[in-house]
């Protein structure tokens, strides 16, 4: 018997443990990514095959993608979302950092009270305010326009709060030195505070971009044409218009939407993670 196989040595045991570890990791990975794989896989199948319940087909095809791009406004939806999310992100970076600056570096009456006022807005869910907000944007003439999805979100208490934490951690010496140099608040804000807290700004940028990108209820209530409809509601639009259950094309549209975000996420992950820890742990 001894000849048949060597006695398990320590290194062999370690090898087994390693296999088990990898096995477990792969198992977990499959749980996380299988919906992606399934979705993207079916996007290459002809709808006729999907309808029959076939998950394998001899003729894999790009046709669903061609159909999605040529017969639906999916690219327009993507473009709309990109415009809305980018502007919202930039606006939030600006206005949140300005407000945060005021709370940290300016001495003014009612600072504490105002800060709590800001903070309290985090307790008031936007979802509970849509009814009067709809009336407001309607009176402002913003309905069915990019602005309607940007203006109400120009600033957030969350962003202000996060950047306030970052500003508070700036060394006092910086402020003292710049006071001696005679820098105005605007100069100090722009040339010192913002560059110093760029990691936090980046984290907030990622947050606000994703937040805006994922908006669903508000655009659904306030956009009425493909010209301005963002991609989340666009996908719903495509799905509900499609009475034939054209699964292949719907999956392809979803893939078109998710693949760019995944790529950005994979590339930017390192920085994003650094920012997350910076912003939320401290």
């Amino acid at each position, binding site marked *: 018997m001894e000849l048949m196989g060597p006695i398990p040595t320590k290194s062999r045991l370690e090898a087994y443990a*390693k296999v088990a570890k990898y096995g477990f*990791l792969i198992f*977990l*990975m499959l749980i*996380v*990514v299988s*919906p*992606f794989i*399934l*979705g993207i896989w*079916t996007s290459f199948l002809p709808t006729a095959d*999907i309808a*029959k*319940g076939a*998950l394998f087909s001899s003729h894999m095809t790009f046709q669903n993608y061609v159909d999605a791009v040529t017969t639906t406004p999916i690219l327009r939806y993507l473009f709309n979302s990109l415009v809305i999310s980018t502007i919202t992100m930039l606006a939030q970076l600006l206005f949140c950092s*300005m*407000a945060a600056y*005021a*709370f940290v570096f*300016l001495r*003014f009456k009612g600072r504490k009270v*105002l800060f709590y*006022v*800001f903070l309290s*807005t985090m*307790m*008031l*869910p936007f*979802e*509970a*305010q*849509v*009814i*009067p907000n709809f009336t*407001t944007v309607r009176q402002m003439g913003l309905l069915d326009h990019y602005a309607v999805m940007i203006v*109400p979100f120009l*600033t957030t*208490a969350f962003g202000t709060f996060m950047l306030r934490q970052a500003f508070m951690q700036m060394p006092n010496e910086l402020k003292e030195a710049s006071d001696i140099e005679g820098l105005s608040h605007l100069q100090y804000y722009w040339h010192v505070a913002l560059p110093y807290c760029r990691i936090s700004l980046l984290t907030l940028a990622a947050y606000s971009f*994703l937040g805006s990108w*994922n908006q*669903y*209820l508000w655009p659904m209530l306030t956009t009425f044409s493909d010209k301005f409809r963002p*991609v*989340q*509601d666009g996908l719903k639009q495509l799905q509900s218009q499609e009475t034939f259950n054209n*699964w292949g094309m*719907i*999956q392809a549209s*979803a893939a078109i*939407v998710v693949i760019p*975000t*995944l790529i*950005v*996420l994979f590339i930017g992950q390192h920085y994003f*993670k650094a920012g*997350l*820890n910076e912003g*939320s*742990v*401290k």
Partner: protein
Amino acid sequence: MEQQSVPSKTGVVGAGHHSVSSRLSKAWVREHMAALLFLGPSLLVLGIFVFYPMLKTLYLSFFLTNDAGEGTVFIGLTNYISLLKNPSYIASLVATLTYVILVSAITVVLGLVLAVAANQHLKGIKIFRTLFSSTMGVSVSVAAIFWLFVFNPSVGILTQLSNALHLPVLNWMTDPKLAMAAIVITTVWMHLGFTFLILFGSLQQVPSSLYEAAEIAGTSKWYQVLHITVPMISPTLFFVMIVTLIDAFKSFGLIDLMTAGGPNNATNLLVYRIYQDAFLNGNYGQASTESIILTVIIAVMTLLQFKLLEKRVNY
């Protein structure tokens, strides 16, 4: 005020005092102008889009609303009373609670498992870390479309698996319990990437000396997780849990895309109900009342979150 009164009382009045006080007040004005400039835009936006609508919603919740959505008949607390007496609204509350608790508990447990698994020194571990966080890039409608296909009664992968294995086919979208399960699963999946990242980040800050000591003491891996990891990162765990909880309370997109609140209101969560009562039924008074109830719940949760955050900062 006090500063100004001091010199006049002591009678030390001189040329110097005047210039100091004017410089002071000039600085005062300048500081306040700057504050206005820096805070003004944010205050304006929050005032128009957060505080005003909150008050308006509160106001509307005391009224019956007409076809145009205007409050016409004041009815005091009647909306609140009839809602809390309405079994279907209570069912919605219960469904929402079930949903948020399941979602946050499962998300945190799974996220922790992923984080612990990813916190090993193995070749290629970075790839796993990246893949574990991948659902962060998934938006609500993409998630809904992918999972609707999984749960589809005729061509879905689950149906096909059941057929292949000769198991009974489950009708995920018409059975109240299964529909709830379906949206819980989808929501957990969507939140997993984010939760993993946060938990993983805090795991990496646990001093490795603790594990080395445990290793020497000959404890098992699971013992280490339960007795070192979890206590060490418990503030983060609670933080993530409450963030997920609040987020789950606000769920709307998945409901709209996957179940539309059905079957039998089993997935008619609070926000979807507000949408349904206001923007389908045109019952704006009742929807406003539901909005206020939602706000109270979220406010309590957020206060809890602040408390935890404070702890976390101290920690």
